[in-house]
Structure formats: C-alpha cells, structure tokens
C-alpha cells in the first residue's frame, strides 16, 4: 500500500471512534429522552381520563 493511502486509512481509523461516539451519544440521548417523555405523557393521559371521569360521575 502506498504510504499516503496508508495514512488515509490511519487517519480515518483514528477519527472513527470519536465520530461514532458523537453520533451514537447524540441519537441514543435523543431517543431515550423522547421515549421517557412520551411514556410519561401516555401515563398522565390515562390518569387524566380516570380522574375527569370520576369528577363527571360525582357532579352528575
């Protein structure tokens, strides 16, 4: 392999862990944050329905 092409591979392999880590952390963090928020929203929606139904029953 030519010296410069060997350097090309070396440069790519040296930088790769940082690039992979940056994109990986970014996506995993977003997905985790959004998933946790969505799950909380769904749980709250169910609680709202139950509470407002019991409020309507009591008022009726």
């Amino acid at each position: 392999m030519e010296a410069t092409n060997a350097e090309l591979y070396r440069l790519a392999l040296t930088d790769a862990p940082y690039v992979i880590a940056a994109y990986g952390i970014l996506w995993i963090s977003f997905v985790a944050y959004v998933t946790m928020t969505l799950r909380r929203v769904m749980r709250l929606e169910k609680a709202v329905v139950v509470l407002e139904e019991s409020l309507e029953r009591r008022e009726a």
Partner: protein
Amino acid sequence: MKQLRIAIILLLIGGLLTTTAFFMAFFTAEVQQFGTVTVASELDTAFQLVSVGDNGFSYGRPWFSQKIFYFHVPVAEASFLVLLLSAVFAVRFLMTRKRSFDTKSRIAMETSLVFVILTMITGVLWTRASWGVWWEWEPRLTTYFIMMLMMIAYFVLRNSIEDEERRAVYGAAFAVLAAINAPISFMITRVLESNHPVVFQSGMASSNLLPFIVAQVGMLMVGYAVYALRMSEERLGERIDAAKEALEG
C-alpha cells in the same frame, strides 16, 4: 391534544430529515481538509497531489472528524434559539405575570439545556479528534461553558426558592441573563481570534452545505417537538392537579 399531535408529527419529520442528513454527510458530502502534507516525489495515490516546485508534491490532509460538524452545529444553533425562546417567555412573564409564560420559559430552558449538553459532548469529541486535547479554554468553548453553567444555575435557583411568585420572577430574570450569553457565544469567534471553526466564513461546497441545511431544519423541528412534548406533559400534570383538587374539595 393538538400540541401533542404537532409534537409527534414534527418529531417524525425532524427524525427523518436528520437521518437523511446523516447519510448525506457520510455518502455525498466531500471530505474536508485540515492542513497539507508535503511528499518528496509523486505517488500513485487516492490523494490529489499538487506540485510545489522543488519541494515535491503536497496534498490536503483529510479531516474525517469534521463529519461531526453536520450534527454538532445544528444542535448548537437549536440550543441558542430555544434559549432565546425561553428568554422571550421570561420577558413576557415579567410583563404580564401570567404563570403560563413562566412554565413555557422553564420548559424551553430545560429543552435548551438538553441541546447544550449534547453540543458539549459532540464538541468535546470533535476537539479531541481534531486538536488532540479534550478541552481548550478558547473563546467559543469558554463562553458556551459559562452559558451552560448559568442554565444549570437557573434550575438550582428555582429549586432553592419556595415561594411560587418569587421563584418565577427570579427565574425569569435569570433566564434573560443566561440568554445574553447566546449571542455573545455565537459572535465571539467572529470578533476574537479563536481556534474554533467559523461556519460560512471560509465558504462551503454545496455537497457539504446541503446535509448541513437538512440537519439544521431537522434539528430545529426536533427542538420544537421536544419543547411541545414537555409542554403537553406539563399541561396534563396541571389538569391532574386541578381534577384532584376538585375531587378533594
């Protein structure tokens, strides 16, 4: 809920756009260069060699870690905009004293902090790959770090005040103070000498510009979606509190 539906739609479109930008960044955007390397004689190589007279030939050193740019900058710019949104709501709260503006300001601050932390993580990784160090006290990094500390201090301040009215007023004033850092941090690399790259100053090839714009639009959509999602959660919480109060009363 209308806001929740908008949040989910924006989240899906934003996710699609940022994923598209990710593939474009790696498959269509040309590799940027970071300095040059000189060799004594002509070589059969993938690099484009340029003759430099008696010194032999030179080629641009490929800058693979620059690929982080396509997400690092959109996340950073989204953090600035959401922080400014928080300050706008804070000012509106101070003018009207309506509690809903305080809630909006707090949620925008929280959303912005998520983006700021992600900008810091991607930035530190890019700094390590490009400059060989994890951190450097240069103007952009320092001002952005101060901005992050002020945003964390905003939540510490809020949690330390029990009285709701005082908490909201102090929080709003501090949100405005924290947001002043956004234009300072954004402009500082254009005013002071800095190692940090300045976007658009040296021009950008269209193959690089397109994934950046797609990622930027997508990230702004994700930013607003996260804010709207948290606002929906907050409103549901308020409805639960109101229903509980009515049931107990």
